[in-house]
């Protein structure tokens, strides 16, 4: 397979690799912390889907916006959020991004344009359209990346929000992360089309079907869609075909997926694949790889320590932040 033209320097490619690794290790730490009862509330891990968040977010500028989902840790890390404060939020600590009020499903860093993970399936899609509308009203050239799962595409909010963005040619990149299962529901039995991207035709916008485990392919498509949005030509719908390795969440471990299918997708590990691409380009030596892995492990270790040693919120804090 030909390497797509990515316009990424070797250093930028190594950064994509590092970012994917950081997501993977972060999620492993979340799972281990759940076992130790440190996680408060649910947590939905992103393991296996790392190329999607990293490929998309690497096409954004610093002042662009993004909306996320209940499975949002990967989007946050790809956007450059601090893993210490993320983990503290997941542990329900006062030092977390949302002071322990939001937890895993609501991590946000509004200062970085990360408008928030979302516990309502399909809830973030109209918000992305609205953020793009706000950018238009302010006459700014910012773009919004909107992440959602394939399960969300059967909500009315998906249709309403994309149609609205399309008629106003709003600067949104709609990113469907099709990991083939929405809780216990297989994609084929819940969705009348073969590809989510096929639905783009209903809104007269471009639809892209992408190998979501190929970070360069995701990045290349994202660059095109972001350019189109920024140029005022309207939204696109990108469908990253991928898979989650773990059961739905730490609270929902009953997993109806065929073990063969899970194994098949694990063999398409987006991180191992990209490592191979980098090695073949002589962009990553064994020593460099070891150094990156070590640096990532150190960040995670530091995050676990920070979150574990952070204070619980004061009970009185419960009644603060209700109104601006």
């Amino acid at each position, binding site marked *: 397979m030909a390497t797509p033209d990515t316009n990424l320097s070797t250093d930028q490619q190594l950064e994509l690799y590092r970012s994917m690794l950081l997501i993977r290790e972060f999620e492993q730490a979340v799972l281990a912390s759940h076992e130790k009862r440190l996680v*408060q*509330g*649910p947590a939905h891990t992103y393991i296996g889907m790392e190329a999607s968040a990293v490929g998309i977010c690497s096409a954004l500028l610093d002042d662009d916006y993004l909306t996320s989902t209940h499975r949002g840790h990967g989007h946050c890390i790809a956007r450059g959020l601090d893993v210490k404060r993320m983990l503290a939020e997941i542990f*329900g*600590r006062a030092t977390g991004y949302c002071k*322990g*009020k*939001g*937890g*895993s*499903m*609501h991590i946000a860093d509004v200062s970085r344009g990360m408008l928030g993970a*979302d*516990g*309502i*399936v*399909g*809830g973030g899609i109209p918000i992305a359209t609205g953020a793009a509308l706000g950018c238009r009203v302010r006459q700014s050239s910012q773009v919004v990346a909107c992440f959602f799962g394939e*399960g*969300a595409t*059967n*909500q*009315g*909010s998906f249709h309403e929000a994309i149609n609205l963005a399309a008629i106003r040619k709003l600067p949104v990149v709609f990113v469907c992360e099709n990991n083939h299962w*929405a*809780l*216990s*529901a297989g994609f084929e*039995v*819940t*969705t009348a089309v073969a590809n989510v991207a096929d639905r783009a035709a209903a809104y007269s916008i471009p639809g892209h079907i992408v190998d979501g485990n190929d970070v360069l392919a995701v990045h290349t498509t994202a660059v095109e869609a972001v350019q189109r949005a920024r140029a005022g030509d309207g939204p696109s719908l990108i469908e990253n075909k991928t898979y989650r390795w773990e059961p739905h969440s730490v609270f*929902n471990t*009953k997993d*109806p997926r065929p073990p063969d299918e899970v194994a098949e997708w694990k063999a398409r590990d987006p991180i191992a694949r990209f490592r191979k691409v980098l090695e073949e380009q002589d962009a990553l030596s064994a020593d460099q790889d070891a150094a990156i892995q070590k640096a990532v492990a150190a960040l995670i270790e530091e995050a676990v320590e920070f979150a574990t040693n952070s204070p*619980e*919120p*004061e*009970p*009185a*804090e*419960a*009644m603060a932040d*209700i109104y601006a």
Partner: protein
Amino acid sequence: MARTITYSEALNEALHEEMQRDANVFVLGEDIAVLGGLFQVTKDLLDKYGPERVIDTPISEAAIAGAGVGAALAGTRPVIEFQFNDFMTIAMDQIVNHAAKLRYMTGGQAAVPLVMRAAICSGIGMGAQHSQSLEAWFAHVPGLIVIMPSTPYAAKGLLKAAIRNPNPVVFLESRLLYAIKGEVPEGEYLLDIPGSVMVREGGDVTVVATGRMVSVATSAAEEVGRDGTEVEVIDPQTLKPLDTATIIESVKKTGRLVIVNEGSRTCGYAAEIAAIVSEQALDFLDAPIERVTAGDVPMPVAKVLERAVLPGRDDVVGAIGRVLG
């Protein structure tokens, strides 16, 4: 002879029995067929009744509700599931503007025998979008019946009665009750809609509690009972229409009222009960009515914060102390 089963098993039995009894009863919702429901309430229904009557849907709450309304109009008795009651907000048009009103708007022609099941999932760190207790929203809408069972016995008898009721019923379960065990008779039984339960009799204070708060209120009653205070605990079971007579009679006897409800305070269900008692038994009150509710705040995830927001046993004990003066 009564056996002991869980709240979840009791609901499951009700569905099995009603689907067995009436071929027009069917279930529809997310993750209910193959998985048997997030909380296992629809367990094994797929094996027994097949995919035509046990239907996994896409994530489409508005369509689930509307399909329930339409199927009810067309002569069946759908039981639809929303997982968390918070997700019913997406289906509010069908629930509020359609299910609740079609009977009346058609001048009594149409009937919507629809059961809408959902869980209140507070107390486990699920956060602001998964921990609400929205019973007051539904009770506010003319045309809906609202039920909150607090025990396995009530869960089974009320769900069966709800399925046979010719009206739209919002049936609110509780995540923290699913694993609770209680006595449930082997044979068939139905409970009254409306119909409240005197959980505990006592002459000093009346405590009205709903859903999961019934056990919280009962344990508070036991606690103050050790000092000789006799608390009467009433569980309305059906919030709308409400069996007001039992509450009024009790307040006339005790002269003191505490209301315990898990929803947020302003315009909550406790306010409605307080208003009814003020209208019908004000002269009998020896102290101001106390409400014990969740705070007027979205539910936080962190345990210490969630505990601060949710009503608990100590809050009820405190309120009982205050009405006793």
